[in-house]
């Protein structure tokens, strides 16, 4: 067991390499009445082609299967997980993203029982042909619902305009067609690969005691022989598919996603890459930036405007999204601003203001036990140390950011996606 402290935050957490093969993170929070636990696997919607080390061939599975598996895991031969939580009063949920699947609960009572439920149901799959068929109906509805959500359609259309082959372009839930190919056998195959404890992590934050967490884990976790998973993606060209894409929906105002595809030289980005890019994006288009204020003053964007460094295994992009009555103008202004900043350089005092602001926001994140627990899982899967970011904020200089600006967000790799009536 390792104890990791932060003087700045006045917080500490424990990292445990459990004998079962699972990595466990526990952050007790003084004077909190509730606790939050998240049990995650390093497996998401993009992992559709994989094999175990030593196996000859890659297995290819239908799109949307990670999300489907998430739904199915709540069921068991006897009481399903929701029915069990209903007796203890936890508020439970799960989510699947591009690169991870997480099961979580929060509660202010019966923490031990809830943690046992979580650990047990995630370790005990129960899939049958019949239950798979029923779920196809429910998930089909869920997929249909997203076709009417303009922001969702706008983003995935952009990803399809940027990416030729990478599965990040596919809806996390798959399509009605792809999920119709899912069988109980395929679910077990994915489960047995990705739900190996050596590919997972548990994070617990709040009104908890570390020894209590470990002793429940001792009791509930079944040893997993560590495995090494190889994931494969079809070769992704550097160029984009198309610079503009449009989708019609009954919206009263257009929604846009504008993005730059970045060259992904390594599978993963470092924590420093993440922080530097976030500072850069804040300088270009944050609330204090001349660009944001100009577009807002002119009424071309509104407060829904956002920016994101969007990256994961084999994909890297910068996204700007929001509502606008003139998305083309927004994208032109963003390109123009990047060009200008490249020429003029970044003003040192602007850099300082942005750095101080993001530093403060980073500390504020530690208010929320759910946010912290999910960050712990994210850091674990990416090989980061949770508290390192505050130190990195202190080290970064304006020239680091300028260097990054020279190498990112090239106009020829940008695309605009619009959802309009």
């Amino acid at each position: 067991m390792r104890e990791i402290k932060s003087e700045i935050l006045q917080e500490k957490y424990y990292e445990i390499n459990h004998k079962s093969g699972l990595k466990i993170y526990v952050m007790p929070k003084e004077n909190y009445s509730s606790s939050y636990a998240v049990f995650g696997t390093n497996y998401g919607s993009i992992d559709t082609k994989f094999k175990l080390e030593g196996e000859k061939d890659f297995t290819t599975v239908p799109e949307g299967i990670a999300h489907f598996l998430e739904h199915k895991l709540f069921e068991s031969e006897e009481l399903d997980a929701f029915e069990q939580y209903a007796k203890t009063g936890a508020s439970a949920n799960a989510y699947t993203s591009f690169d991870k699947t997480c099961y979580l609960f929060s509660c202010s009572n019966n923490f031990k029982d809830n943690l046992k439920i979580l650990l047990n149901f995630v370790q005990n799959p129960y899939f049958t042909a019949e239950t798979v068929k029923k779920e196809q109906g429910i998930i089909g509805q869920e997929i249909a619902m997203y076709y009417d959500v303009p922001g969702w359609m706008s983003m995935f259309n952009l990803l399809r305009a940027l990416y030729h082959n990478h599965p990040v372009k596919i809806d996390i839930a798959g399509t009605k067609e792809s999920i119709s190919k899912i069988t109980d056998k395929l679910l077990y195959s994915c489960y047995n690969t990705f739900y190996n404890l050596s590919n997972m992590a548990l994070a617990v934050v709040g009104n908890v005691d570390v020894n209590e967490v470990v002793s429940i884990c001792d009791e509930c976790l079944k040893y997993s022989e560590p495995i090494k998973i190889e994931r494969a993606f079809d070769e992704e060209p550097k160029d984009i598919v198309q610079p503009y894409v449009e989708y019609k929906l009954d919206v009263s105002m257009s929604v846009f996603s504008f993005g730059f595809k970045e060259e992904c030289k390594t599978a993963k980005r470092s924590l420093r890459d993440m922080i530097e890019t976030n500072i850069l994006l804040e300088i270009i288009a944050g609330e204090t930036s001349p660009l944001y204020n100009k577009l807002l003053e002119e009424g071309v964007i509104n407060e829904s405007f956002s920016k994101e460094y969007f990256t994961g295994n084999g994909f890297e992009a910068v996204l700007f999204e929001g509502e606008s009555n003139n998305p083309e103008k927004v994208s032109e202004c963003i390109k123009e601003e990047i060009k200008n900043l490249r020429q003029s350089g970044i003003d040192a005092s602007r850099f300082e203001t942005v750095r101080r602001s993001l530093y403060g926001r980073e500390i504020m994140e530690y208010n929320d036990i759910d946010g912290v627990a999910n960050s712990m899982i994210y850091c674990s899967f990416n090989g980061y140390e949770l508290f390192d970011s505050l130190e990195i904020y202190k080290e970064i200089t304006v020239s680091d950011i300028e260097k990054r600006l020279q190498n990112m967000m090239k106009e020829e790799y940008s695309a605009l996606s619009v959802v309009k009536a």
Partner: protein
Amino acid sequence: MKSFSKKELCSGAKVVFVPASRFKTNDISINFTLPLRAETASNYAIVPFLISRSCAKYPKASELSNVLAGLYGASVSANVRKIGENQSLTLDLTCLDDRFSLDGESISYKCLELLFELAFRPRVENNAFFTEDVEREKALLIQALYGEENEKRIYAQTQLEKHMFKNEPYGVHRFGTAKQIEAITENDAYNAWSKMLEKAKIQITVVGSADEDKVLSLAKKELSSIKRSYEGLPEAAFVSKASDVNTVVERQKIKQGKLVLGFRVDIKPESELTPAMKSTADIFGGGPYSKLFANVREKMSLCYYCSARYNKAKSIMLVQCGCEEENMDKALYEILNQLEQIKLGNFDNEFNSSKIAISDMINSVSDSPDMLKNWYSVQIVSSEIKSPELSVEENEAVTKEDVIECAKRITLDTVYKLCSEKEAE
């Protein structure tokens, strides 16, 4: 430690302190609440947005956001809410607690001063806001209104409210209408702002470890400079029972239909039955243990979501359901059947689950500054303020008979269906 304390400032104005040193932040809000009326809704709605973006001291939005960024990423946001038939205008501020400041400055006090600058000394001239500010906020407010329409779930609910409450103030959107927003003049906005200071019920809510005395003396000083004529807030129009069921169908180019049901609830906001009614709605369509989730969604696979929500301040309950048109009648039948089951007392399992879930949920409010702030600030319309602890006790005391009694007081008023256009198939 007491969960909260309150101090009166002047007639209809108070500060609520929620001490919490466990947070990294101080969360402060100023809430102005006025009766929601069709003719004034838009004029009032624009005010918090106008005053959150600039002030006399920082006339440009970019200046203000730079000041906030320099205060370790402090943030100010404006909100307009409908609480019963009142319109609640809020400035919310979140800032880093003083102990994390790198140079020992008091972040929270500076932020509090800033918040008062915004609320009490906006950027105005000759009894009018500036044209460019008003025009910008009008455009943004109209966009926000349209943005909501893009979210079909919200749109469907708004449409139901429009039809069900066409003769009651509750049918008024919290932003009013696009047409009324369009018509706001620089003077209108100024008059709405000064009326707000004069007539609104005011509550300042402070969650964190900010110095209470300093907050209080600053708040008193600011409020003493304005002329107040507070007249109290009116009660919401109370309709105890629906007479006939009114059905509305609308078609749009969408893939998935939405079904919204509006029910009248024969329980007034101050009634002792409200905690039981909260349980009733939860048993009916709250968590995954609820009747609607277990039957309409899980057992019958009729929809992706199906949930019920009780609105205490307006004595209503809404059910929302995402479902295909061909399943809507089946879903409607089953939803009403599940309500009958509650009236018959068939809910033992759901009752136990709901009871622990509600208590659990209320207990976790105290771990989030944002939830705590909202918990207290929506109570601006109530005569007494309840802590989360007290609400847990009330929930624990709810009996099965209370729930049956509440279920019997629920009647269906309006059915709204949003369906896809036939030719879009």
